[in-house]
């Protein structure tokens, strides 16, 4: 018997790792009826993106893993109430973001109290699309440092907008805020990034952080 769930999983691996809307809908239906294989494909397709998002907010590996696990469990336990007009990723990121906020409230971690010693070093594996020079690595670390100094809603808005490629409307839905507020978070985040990074480079238009930009 041909297993279409395995087929979808293979397609997701071959492609960009993201599921099409149709695949996602079928997987959710199967997971809702108790299919563990479908649930596994959904977890594998979203876990890295969700973890990156959560880790950027919490900055703690163990807590981020626990939060991701809780987000998946909550998503699976309330699949009956999931509306197919939304993307599963949007829903999952919404749950993850709220869990992050709860977590931050619990440990009373403010943005200014972030431990900067935990910043990623240049020795970590980076995408092959990034320039490999030491100067580029330093600038990328500076940019991440500036991103980490943003407030939690601003950081979440930046991550969802740039990394997840969400529109302002999707960011607003994911964060559960009006679109005007989401835009405000995004614009203020850019202003703060501009202030933080202004003195680093004389002319940013000459900086080649990415190979793609250089070509």
């Amino acid at each position: 018997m041909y297993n279409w769930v395995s087929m979808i999983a293979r397609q997701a691996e071959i492609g960009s790792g993201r599921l099409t809307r149709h695949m996602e809908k079928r997987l959710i239906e199967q997971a809702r009826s108790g299919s563990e294989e479908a649930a596994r494909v959904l977890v594998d397709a979203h876990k890295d993106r969700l973890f990156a998002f959560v880790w950027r907010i919490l900055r703690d590996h163990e807590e981020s893993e626990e939060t991701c696990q809780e987000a998946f469990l909550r998503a699976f336990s309330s699949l009956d109430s999931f509306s197919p007009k939304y993307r599963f990723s949007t829903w999952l990121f919404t749950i993850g973001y709220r869990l992050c906020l709860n977590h931050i409230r619990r440990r009373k971690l403010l943005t200014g109290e972030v431990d900067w010693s935990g910043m990623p070093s240049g020795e970590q594996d980076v995408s092959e699309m990034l320039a490999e020079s030491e100067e580029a690595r330093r600038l990328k670390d500076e940019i991440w440092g500036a991103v980490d100094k943003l407030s939690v809603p601003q950081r979440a808005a930046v991550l969802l907008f740039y990394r997840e490629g969400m529109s302002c409307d999707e960011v607003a839905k994911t964060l559960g805020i009006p679109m005007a507020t989401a835009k405000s978070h995004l614009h203020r985040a850019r202003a703060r990034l501009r202030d933080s990074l202004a003195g680093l480079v004389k002319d940013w238009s000459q900086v080649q952080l990415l190979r793609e930009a250089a070509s």
Partner: protein
Amino acid sequence: MITCQDARQLFDRYLDGELSPALQTELHAHQLSCPMCQSELAMLEACGDVVALDRCEPSLSESFTDRVLLARRSQLVPRPRRWGRMVLLVGSPMAAAASILLAFMLIVPSTPQVNRTAVLGPRDGGIVAAPTSVQEAMKLTRAEDRSEQAERELADTPPMPAVGFMEALLARVVEQSQDGVEGVRGSVAELELLLRQSVLAASEQLVAQGESTRGKGATNDAPADRPIPDLEFLGPPGLNPEPASEPTPHLLLLDPL
């Protein structure tokens, strides 16, 4: 041509992808002539590129998916079937009602079998409300229709036990309690009698002892006056047949002297 201030106000809309083509052209034209605005916009774009593409976060542990699925499996509780819910919803009240009815039947004393047709009489014809209790049936019988047949049947009815189940049970307990009370009363009377006898015997013994000492001639020795025998009245004479010639150590300890 737009100014630097105008250009900066357009940055966000441009980066959001919401700038109209006409304004985009204006912005690009300004950038060509303004290196500062060009650098600033390049910086914001570089930030976006790094956030989007620089994957420098730590990776998840390999067992993450298995852990999630294991936790999900433990969360999945088999749902009760609908008929099971129906049994719970309908069966429970029915069982409760049946229990109450059974208890009522046990508690209510057994009723004499009264022929309803005889009680109500054939002339009633129509539907008559059923008597709710034996008392009502009896009232109806007496007041309305004292037919001979009904009286005969009532006379033939064996005498109704005066008590129901609970009363019979309680009667047994009461009977046992009464027996117990009688027994206790008897024991108390015996004890009282024994005490009276012992007091009498002790006082007689004391009188006899006093007479004998007077006859021998009284001395002033304190040990002779010690009322050791007085302590013996604590027990009935039959229980301690030994004479109290020598006081036992514990009696000496109790001696107030």
